[in-house]
């Protein structure tokens, strides 16, 4: 277990949430006796992540992603189960452990609100005992990569959300952690900056062999960075494996894109017989067909229509993920105790 960067065994976090009905009588009753309800934010999660891996951590809102990251970073005590990160028990929050990790969350966190960014950096340098030369080097790297130059002397409260996020990422990496827990690191950033952050995380991983566990709402982040994805829902493991395997496993359909050569007035009628027509215009058509019927459908299209070009594609990852969550919602219903998932 100690060779792993992250290992959890049946990790569980249960919150007790006060329940109160509306109305005066209920308010008075709650004065005397409080009723609480257990919410299983993380419900028996077992994971292992090897050093140097970049893993995407996916799930709908409220799936337990952030709670899991907080337990891995030592901010939350697990209700039960085991966690080790780099051989440490995170909740003990030993300095030797804290110096090796970082957690970036999409909110203000390490930066001091009222003072220039550079002062926050300096504070973290001393707190993490980063030698001056190494600090200078890392800071130069970060500043050029994230374009921090103009921001360094501004008080944090004057920064825009995107600027703040860049600075949060920079300050979280000044001590060169071996594990990065990134919770929505690109939220609020424009597309160019998202791409830069992605490139930066990949580069950091390559250069330092750091382990990265990343949640994101942008599938582009996950597709660009993560070979492996872990999908959780209702705090339980739904899928753990390669991104391509996730798509293969959960996509029930394929899309066939066709470029028609010349006129084919009956094209729509033909395609509607074969599958679900997603779009058809200007001689270009997209059809969705069940995966098992891909070969037959392709043959039929080639035989009946004047095809210039044809390609069979997996649906976009976004759609697949959406489908995974939708199907589990349908299968289990919210709050149903019997959600089994399809853990792999």
């Amino acid at each position, binding site marked *: 277990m100690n060779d792993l960067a992250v290992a959890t065994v049946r990790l569980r976090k249960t*919150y007790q949430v006060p329940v109160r009905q509306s109305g005066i009588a209920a308010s008075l009753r709650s004065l005397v006796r409080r009723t609480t309800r257990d919410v299983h934010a993380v419900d028996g999660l077992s994971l292992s992540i090897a050093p140097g891996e970049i893993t995407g951590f996916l799930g709908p809102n409220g799936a337990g992603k952030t709670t899991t990251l907080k337990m891995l970073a030592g901010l939350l005590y697990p209700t039960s189960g085991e966690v080790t990160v780099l051989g440490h028990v995170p909740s003990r929050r030993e300095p030797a452990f804290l110096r090796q990790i970082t957690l970036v969350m999409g909110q203000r966190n390490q930066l001091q609100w*009222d003072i*220039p960014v550079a002062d926050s950096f300096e504070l973290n340098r001393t707190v*993490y*005992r980063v030698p001056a030369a190494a600090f200078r080097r890392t800071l130069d790297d970060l500043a050029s990569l994230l374009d921090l130059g103009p921001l360094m002397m501004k*008080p944090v409260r004057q920064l825009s959300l995107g600027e703040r996020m860049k600075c949060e990422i920079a300050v979280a990496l000044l001590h060169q952690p071996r594990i990065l827990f990134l919770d929505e690191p690109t939220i609020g950033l424009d597309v160019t900056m998202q791409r830069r952050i992605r490139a930066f995380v990949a580069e950091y991983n390559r250069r330092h062999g750091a382990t990265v566990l990343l949640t994101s709402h942008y599938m582009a982040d996950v597709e660009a960075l993560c070979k492996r994805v872990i999908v959780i829902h209702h705090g339980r493991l739904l899928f753990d494996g390669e991104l391509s395997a996730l798509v293969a496993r959960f996509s029930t359909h394929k899309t066939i894109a066709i470029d028609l050569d010349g006129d084919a007035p009956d094209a729509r009628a033909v395609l509607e017989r074969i599958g679900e027509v997603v779009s058809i215009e200007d001689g270009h058509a997209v059809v969705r067909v069940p995966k098992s019927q891909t070969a037959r459908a392709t043959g039929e299209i080639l035989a009946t229509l004047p095809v210039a070009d044809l390609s069979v594609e997996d649906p976009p990852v976004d759609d697949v993920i959406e489908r995974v969550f939708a199907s589990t919602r349908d299968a289990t219903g919210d709050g149903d105790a019997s959600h089994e998932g399809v853990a792999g």
Partner: protein
Amino acid sequence: MIDWISIYRAQFAVTFGAQLQYRASLAIWLLGLVLAPVISLVVWTTVAASGGGQAGGFSQGEFAAYFLALLVANHLTFTWVAWDFEFRVRNGSLSGQLLRPVDPIHANIADNVTYKVITLLAVVPATAVLAWAFEPAADTSWLNLVLFLPVVALAATLRFLVEYSLAMAAFWTTRVFAINDLYYVPLFFFSGQLVPLALLPDWVRAVGNLLPFRWMLSFPVEVAIGRVAPSEVPIGVACQLAWIGAFLVVRSMAWRHGVRRYSAVGA
């Protein structure tokens, strides 16, 4: 070995910058800190004047000396750590501090000391003006004034630890204000902010000696104005140290258990 000097130097730079950003609110806080003892000063010098220049063994000038020393000592021992801590637990910004390999208490200590240093620049002239206006008189010695310094430092340490321990309640309830209100009543009374403890009945003073409040504020004031002889100071210091020891234990136990309950709201 942790390099505390560097950490504190950097922390001071941060809190210094942060507090100077809010000069207006700093001034308002300061005004409140100066006004409260001035009101007591006016009331009690008036009482003394109507009682033929004396009330409970205090002359007008002695009341003035008492409340001016109280003003300075209250400023030096005052903390807002409970309020601050509750805020950080409630909005989740404690998380950022918990991720760092240094106990968050050091940020609070630095914050407190910086605030004192900055505001002392205003408290000293304010006290001087009030001294000119109210003409304090005290039968004190140089030794008493010198002893005031370590005694007020211990009082500040104790008050900080007591209020930090109370602040830990934020881990259990996100409404610490109610507990604070409960704390401020005996503090106001037994720390000598309302009246000098010397004016209270013997049995009340006896009770007060057993509580931590006198040692958090009144004691350094009594030393400064010569109401405690230098030879009696060691007993008081022993009481201060005993309470400091007790609250070091309380705070570290409350911290250990509290952090387990921390639910890292939001951030």
